[in-house]
């Protein structure tokens, strides 16, 4: 990809969904652009972008969950913390970002018995990656089209739940696909179906 060859994408094209068909959250694009080592080539693909979206989603959710549980309490965590010391050691080795992510991603997925301490760790990590806080509450709330699509998708969620209740799983799968195609992640558990707008 290069400007001289004319096959480049502007950041705006990516944000607005003109590259992948789905709008892309800026934090996802940031993560996509920083996750490969700076001296290697980057392959920009839809699959890779969608993997990045998964990581960003988990980070945002981790932050929410830790903040809720920490209830405003803060702990000062320094770089001697085992997770941070490994994170920093990887980056100190010629900015080995893959090594750093190999520390951070499993840590994020693990259990966090001490939410206050974990939140302290999370903040230090995010001071470098900066992938969770940016424009997280997207302006979609103010966008009436987005509001409309959200309302519609929520109607489909209730239809999906109704289909599951009458054990019509074929129909339920159809509806799930329909919601996903409209740009939402779908999760169903015993309490019913919830959706979130896809980040990429």
């Amino acid at each position, binding site marked *: *990809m*290069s*400007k001289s060859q004319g096959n*480049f*994408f*502007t*950041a*705006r094209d*990516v*944000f607005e969904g003109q590259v992948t068909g789905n709008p892309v959250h*800026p*934090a996802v*694009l*940031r993560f996509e*652009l*920083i996750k490969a080592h*700076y*001296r290697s080539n*980057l392959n*920009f693909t839809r699959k890779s972008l969608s993997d990045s979206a998964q990581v960003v989603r988990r980070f945002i959710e981790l932050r929410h969950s830790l903040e809720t549980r920490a209830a405003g309490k803060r702990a000062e965590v320094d*770089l001697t913390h085992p997770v941070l010391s490994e994170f*920093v*050691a990887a*980056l*100190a*080795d*010629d*900015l080995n*970002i893959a090594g750093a992510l190999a520390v951070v991603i499993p840590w994020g997925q693990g259990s966090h018995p001490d939410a206050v301490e974990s939140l302290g760790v999370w903040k*230090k990590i995010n*001071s*470098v*990656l*900066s*992938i969770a806080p*940016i*424009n997280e509450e997207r302006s979609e709330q103010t966008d009436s089209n987005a509001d409309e699509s959200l309302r519609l998708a929520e109607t489909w969620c209730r239809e999906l739940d109704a289909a599951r209740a009458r054990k019509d799983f074929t129909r339920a799968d159809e509806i799930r696909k329909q919601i996903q195609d409209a740009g939402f992640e779908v999760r169903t558990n015993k309490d019913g179906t919830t959706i979130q707008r896809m980040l990429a």
Partner: protein
Amino acid sequence: MTIQLYNSLTRSLQPFESLSPGLVRMYSCGPTVYDFAHIGNFRSFLFGDVLRRFLELMGYRVDHVMNITDVGHMLEGESDKMSQAAERMKENKKSGRVPAGVNVDPNDPYQIAEFYTQAFLEDARKLGYQIAFEYPHRVPKATDHIAGMQRMIQSLLDRGHAYVADDGVVYFSVESFPRYGQLSGNTLDRLQTGAGGRVSEENQARKRHPADFMLWKPDAQHLMKWDSLSGLAYRMFGYGARAIGLRCDRYPHWRRRPHLSASRMRNRSIMRFQRPRFFRAVLATCQILVC
């Protein structure tokens, strides 16, 4: 903990030590603002951002600066990039890529540059590029530093690192600087004349060495023009350096040079830009250059 980074001068990993205790000075080549920035641009910017943020996590204070190249970045034989930008602005207005409410005169290069500067900053902030939040304090514009570039070119002339060809163009003399190309790896023995296809044979013939590159050139055709230095016996127009807009007054050898007053300037001239190859060496006081 020791930080190891790849030093492009030595082509090897080396332990990083800051020149001043606790302080790292870092410079990033900024965008040329004649179009929206693409993701390849942002990959390079964000690499610098991650490096800076990491150094800050390690307890350093990072003095990070990035320029905005807001003058026509031109290549020989092509039209002025700012003219091209004007055409693109007209197209973008038609297609809606530039919102209808935006009031930019496509014939005014300063307005175009300002529009794309703001667009860049907006995208960069969304992407969490820290320095975009520090505009304009740490993000100087090239057009605000033309006089500094002229002083630097004058200084290079005075010291024999630049010369004036018979058509009035000022070239940097690569042979005057034995370490030329060491940072990029494009040393003189490895450079191939005219490989980029951007320089005419006629112009190549005027140079002392085929790899010499333009600093300043008389040209009446382009949109953005600056006064020349009257201390020179010929017209000059800038094939300046985007990197040089960076606080050149901070460098000690600039301070010793008297500032040229406006009354000593004459001759409308034009600014052009060249890749910042030699400024990487000039800007040696910056420890980290992300170009």
